[in-house]
């Protein structure tokens, strides 16, 4: 592969960016988002543009496609596509290029497809417009494209609508549309971020395969170093609008030259890095100036193994009715959670892992009593909390608190953060107003925020800071258990590491128990004492963290682990020959009786669904 790139480098690059500066107008002032960046992409090359949120990577992509709003943005410098300058082109010519020479795929495949048009129509539209073929030919070509992106049964799929496709399939359709006109440049903006890890592996595979066929150049934008290692020939690292480092991917990973790159790489959770650790361990602290890591102290044992478990969940089941038609006839049920049992000890972290739709969030929300479980028993400290209601339930809520996925959305935007942290204490009326105020200030400092921020509003904070506020609020009532539902999934990798370090530190100090719900296997390995793997509403495997990661017994656990991208370019995942796996649905007919499940013990506290 490298030989061809050296040959290609002699040729004219497909995309060439020179001294690109992009500024945005906000409140009448022009602020640069990208400053004086330059890079090239040769034909047949995949270049990854990596950086955290706000680094300017997506803005760069939009400026190449000419999709920035001219009223609030200003683009300076030069962008050449195959020798043609793009910034001087009139909008009408740009329009001809987009979808033809330059194709884009986005993060959200659902919102990028028109829900009221058939898939066939949407693909053929591109072909008719840019290649001037007849409708009939276009449909034939659309079928071929769907086959090319490995959608089974392509012919009948053409007449279906986007809602008939799963997330991964929609992204395949988007790729088929992007490839329809054999573009010179494909811009992929976080194309796998919203997808499950097994689907992500398939999509990455597909992009690599398709690209190897022709001389298409790919600009791959991502924040995930694991994905970069899997796909990119060259890597461009951006930080606050600047390119800090650029080079061949193996070199960047082997010997990162700049402190920022080193810091970025060290914060990437690596699967298997915890194999020798008995307890969850904090991430190493990296000095942002020198880039030298300071190893974290080994994790302390926080689990209280002697006393009774804190939380006991027995045979928890949650089903939702699906009603169709004019009169809302019951046509089926979503078996979101089916006969799930587990327990959590004091000071222990149990992780629930699985892909979207597996019922892990529903389990968490049932325990929070935010939704009513259909059946089952939930006991906290011996007290049955599954059946209480009204004032009793409200009073009990102080024992279990929740940290949500989106820290901004889970803070009331019109409430100062100090009041937000004081609110739970005031609701439960255990302390006076001044005491609540003092404790809120203490909590701010415990989670690493300054006391002066007390009177600020949520929008004045960054994502990581907001999650710290949410943690402070959750701690206000001194709960015994915290349900963390994808609490770090939306955060940048460095912030993610900081928040996890904070959560582990609090566990050591306060003896908290966590129910950690996540799809990110590498993070789960870092934080858990025990892990439960969920699939289609059931726990398929549960056991101590080390047992699950070093000796996975259930085929689904193995599949989940093998699909995690490894942040090491020399260990690329082998292409999976099976190609496409369809997502199975937990929707069952009305009379469906779930089979009685048996668990087999395969090790110390390690059980597998037989």
């Amino acid at each position: 592969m490298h030989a061809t790139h050296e040959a290609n480098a002699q040729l004219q690059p497909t995309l060439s960016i020179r001294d690109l500066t992009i500024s945005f107008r906000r409140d009448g002032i022009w602020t640069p988002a990208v400053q004086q960046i330059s890079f090239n992409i040769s034909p047949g090359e995949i270049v990854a543009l990596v950086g955290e949120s706000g680094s300017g990577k997506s803005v760069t992509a939009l400026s190449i496609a000419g999709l920035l709003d001219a009223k609030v943005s200003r683009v300076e410098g030069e962008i050449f596509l195959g020798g043609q300058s793009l910034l001087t082109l009139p909008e009408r010519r740009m329009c001809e290029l987009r979808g033809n020479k330059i194709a884009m795929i986005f993060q959200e495949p659902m919102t990028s497809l028109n829900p009221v048009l058939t898939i066939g129509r949407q693909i053929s539209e591109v072909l008719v417009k840019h290649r001037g073929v007849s409708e009939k030919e276009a449909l034939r070509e659309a079928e071929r494209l769907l086959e090319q992106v490995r959608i089974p049964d392509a012919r009948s799929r053409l007449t279906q609508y986007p809602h008939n496709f799963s997330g991964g399939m929609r992204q395949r359709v988007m790729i088929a549309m992007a490839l329809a006109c054999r573009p010179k440049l494909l811009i992929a903006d976080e194309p796998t971020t919203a997808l499950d890890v097994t689907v992500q592996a398939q999509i990455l595979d597909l992009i690599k395969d398709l690209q190897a066929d022709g001389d298409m150049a790919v600009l791959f934008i991502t924040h995930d170093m694991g994905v970069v290692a899997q796909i990119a020939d060259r890597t461009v690292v951006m930080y606050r609008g600047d390119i800090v480092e650029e080079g061949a991917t193996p070199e960047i990973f082997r010997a990162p030259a700049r402190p920022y790159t080193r810091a970025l790489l060290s914060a990437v959770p690596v699967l298997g890095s915890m194999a020798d650790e008995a307890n969850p361990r904090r991430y190493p602290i990296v000095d942002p100036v020198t880039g030298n890591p300071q190893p974290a102290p080994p994790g302390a044992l926080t689990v209280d193994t002697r006393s009774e478990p804190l939380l006991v969940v027995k045979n928890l089941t949650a089903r939702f009715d699906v009603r169709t038609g004019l009169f809302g006839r019951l046509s089926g049920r979503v078996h979101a959670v089916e006969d799930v049992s587990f327990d959590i000890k004091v000071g222990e972290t149990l992780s629930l892992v699985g892909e979207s739709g597996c019922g892990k969030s529903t389990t968490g929300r049932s325990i929070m009593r935010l939704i009513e479980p259909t059946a089952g028993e939930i006991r906290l400290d011996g007290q049955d909390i599954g059946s209480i209601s009204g004032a009793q339930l409200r009073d009990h809520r102080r024992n279990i608190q929740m940290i949500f996925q989106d820290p901004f959305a889970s803070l009331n935007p019109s409430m100062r953060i100090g009041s937000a942290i004081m609110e739970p204490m005031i609701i439960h009326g255990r302390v006076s107003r001044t005491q609540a105020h003092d404790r809120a200030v203490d909590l701010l400092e415990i989670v690493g925020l300054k006391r002066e921020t007390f009177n600020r509003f949520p929008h004045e904070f960054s994502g990581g800071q907001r999650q710290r506020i949410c943690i402070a609020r959750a701690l206000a009532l001194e709960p015994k258990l915290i349900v963390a539902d994808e609490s770090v999934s939306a955060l940048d990798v460095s912030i993610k590491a900081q928040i996890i370090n904070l959560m582990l530190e609090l566990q050591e100090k306060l003896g908290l128990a966590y129910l950690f719900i996540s799809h990110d296997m590498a993070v789960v390995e870092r934080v858990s004492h025990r892990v439960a793997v969920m699939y289609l509403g059931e726990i398929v495997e549960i056991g101590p963290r080390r047992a699950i990661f070093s000796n996975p017994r259930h085929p689904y656990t193995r599949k989940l682990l093998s699909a995690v991208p490894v942040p090491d370019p020399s260990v690329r995942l082998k292409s999976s020959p099976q190609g496409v796996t369809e997502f199975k649905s937990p929707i069952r007919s009305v009379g469906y009786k779930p089979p009685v499940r048996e668990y087999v013990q395969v090790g110390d506290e390690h059980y597998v669904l037989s």
Partner: protein
Amino acid sequence: MVGANDHLSVLPVTETGGRRARRTFLRHSGAVVGGSILFIFLTISLLAPLLWTSDPLSVEPMDRLQGMSEKHWFGTDMHGRDLYSRVVYGGRVSLLVGFSVAFLASMIGGLIGLFAGFIRPLDGPLMRVMDGFMSIPPIMLAIALVALTRGSIQNVIIAISIAEIPRVSRLVRGVVLTLREQPYIEAAISMGAGPLRVVFRHILPNAIGPIVVQATFICASAMLAEAALSFIGAGTPPITPSWGNILAEGRMLWQIHPAMVFLPAAALSVTVLAVNMLGDGLSDIFDPRGLGKS
């Protein structure tokens, strides 16, 4: 990057919400102009007795239908009443009706909307009742009320409010339905907040923006409705100086004495325009993206 001290870095955004709102407001020239005009009109009608007016009801048959003079700045009407005084005092009626209806309709409509949106079982019944109210034309209702009792400002305010309440409640219900799905509502419930706390501490403060904007538009349309009702004789008693009444009396004489139509009409148009401009500006301030239209 773990040591990048995310929690210690000072973000560029250090303004408080109030300061940002004030700055957005001041940058919005329409809101400033509208707000100023409204303020001036409000001051004028409040200070009416001090502004060189005479009694707007005193009839001077000798001075009927006079043109502009030093004694009667805008001239007089067919009963010899001072037109300047009547227009200035008329502002009191218009603004009183406008503000009262805006206040009443957004309070009552807002409460109904809040409960319809938050308490699921109440949604259907409340909204069907609102649909019923909406099907009554406000002019018919006003005529009926006046026929039952007699023309008074209270009746006008009640009639217009009844017509406006369903609009507010529909808007608020819609806002509440989207707000109640926000994670911060779930967060409040999960920390043990009761329904009243959720509604008044978490939903209402975030719904206040659309309600205030809607209130300004209601204020403007209520002033117009009052004029229309007075014009057809179903509004305030004819003797009361209101812009609608002056217009109604002037319509027969407009060819020989156009000032009687022109002056109250101009006052009404400018006030309604000012209120609408203010509402437009407020809706930009409450725009969650805070971008403004500039």
